[in-house]
């Protein structure tokens, strides 16, 4: 709350939950949204610049680090960085081997990318909530922007666009491999001819259709919900600051405790996203289930 005394708590929270949205507004034309209502009015043809920036930055960081190690990798004695990378690769490979029983060279790199990327994006949650947005607002204020209308969400996984983006990509892969492995007929048969046989076709379609569609939705919403809730609690704790020594101290302790607990959550969510992706792809490869 340190950023401005003129904000109410509600405004403060609202401010933290609004993305930096670039789009075409019906009245103001192309530009950044000045509030969440404007962002909503921009409709579909707008882009959350903060989500894109941080997700690409973190993804590139992951790829850059792993690529650097992969280039200098040796089968001999590994150095520190290689050890670390091998540890993660081994961990991912073990999970893939445990849950995925078919031959597909794409699944393991996919799982690694998901795990590392989601973990890094979630990790941004541990950066104090006001730090980066405040610095960014100050920076833009130099160029004449109103700091109260400069929005920035640093945790991409608290933006449903990011989580649904990944989940839908996984869903497309599930559809692709289902059809590739079983053929269109086989896949449709799986959707319509079980569990009740061909006379229960409508019921089968409803059941199987829901179970199929629930995969990406649950995948995306689970990650989004966990990270959104975690972020919200950090914001609520941050509201306590500035209310005297006692509240400041309490907020400090609470923030620390929640951050420690959150380390578990961010790792767990990255892990769950990865494992479920592997499992869904395994089911897509299976003839019967």
């Amino acid at each position, binding site marked *: 709350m340190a950023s401005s005394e003129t904000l109410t708590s509600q405004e403060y929270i609202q401010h933290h939950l609004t993305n930096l949205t670039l789009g075409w507004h019906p009245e103001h034309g192309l530009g950044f949204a000045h509030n969440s209502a404007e962002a909503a009015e921009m409709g579909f043809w*707008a882009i959350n610049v903060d989500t894109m920036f941080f997700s690409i930055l973190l993804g590139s960081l992951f790829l850059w680090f792993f690529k650097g190690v992969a280039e200098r990798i040796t089968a001999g004695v590994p150095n520190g960085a290689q050890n670390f990378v091998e540890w993660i690769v081994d961990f991912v490979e073990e999970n893939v081997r445990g849950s995925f029983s078919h031959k597909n060279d794409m699944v393991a790199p996919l799982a690694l990318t998901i795990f590392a990327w989601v973990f890094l994006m979630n990790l941004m949650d541990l950066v104090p909530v006001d730090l980066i947005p405040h610095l960014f607002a100050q920076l833009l204020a130099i160029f004449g922007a109103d700091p109260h209308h400069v929005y920035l969400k640093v945790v991409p996984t608290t933006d449903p666009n990011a989580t649904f983006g990944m989940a839908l990509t996984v869903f497309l892969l599930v559809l692709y491999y289902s059809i590739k492995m079983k053929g269109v007929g086989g896949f449709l048969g799986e959707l319509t001819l079980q569990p009740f046989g061909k006379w229960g076709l409508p019921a089968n379609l409803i059941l199987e259709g829901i179970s199929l569609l629930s995969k990406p939705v649950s995948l995306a919403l689970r990650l989004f919900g966990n990270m959104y809730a975690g972020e919200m609690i950090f914001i609520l704790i941050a509201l306590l600051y500035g209310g005297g020594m006692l509240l400041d101290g309490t907020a400090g302790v609470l923030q620390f405790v929640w951050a420690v607990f959150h380390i578990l959550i961010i790792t767990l969510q990255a892990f769950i996203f990865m494992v479920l992706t592997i499992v869904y792809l395994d089911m897509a490869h299976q003839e019967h289930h």
Partner: protein
Amino acid sequence: MNINLTLFAQMITFAVFVGFCMKYIWPPIVKALAERKAKIAEGLAAAERGHQEKALGEQRALELMKEAKTNAAEIVNQAQKRALDIVEEAKTDARTEGERLVAAAQAEIERETNRAREELREKVATLAIAAAEKILQKEIDVAAHRSLVDDFAKQL
């Protein structure tokens, strides 16, 4: 919190990241891991082989040592026997040589004695004759009594 174009942008980003990881990151790392696995397996097998070879070598070394010990003992025995023989031979030789020397010395002594006796005999004969001549200068004919004196000298 609105679903917008970011969704598709994220999907594309995700796909690109996965593709990059699949092409440039995963294969070399997994390859290196597999290589190390093979290396370790090879190393363990080599160590196992080394162990076996070492055991075999030790056994062979033991056998060789035993053989060498036997050989050495035999050689020492032979050498001792030979040394005894040599000492024995030397003793025999020395004894023979000593006996020979003693015999030679005795022969020499005998010879010297004989020679001295002969000389003495001659000298006694001459002395006796000279004495007899002096005593009986006139009466004794040297030629007539010569054989008598010689007989006398021989009896000495």
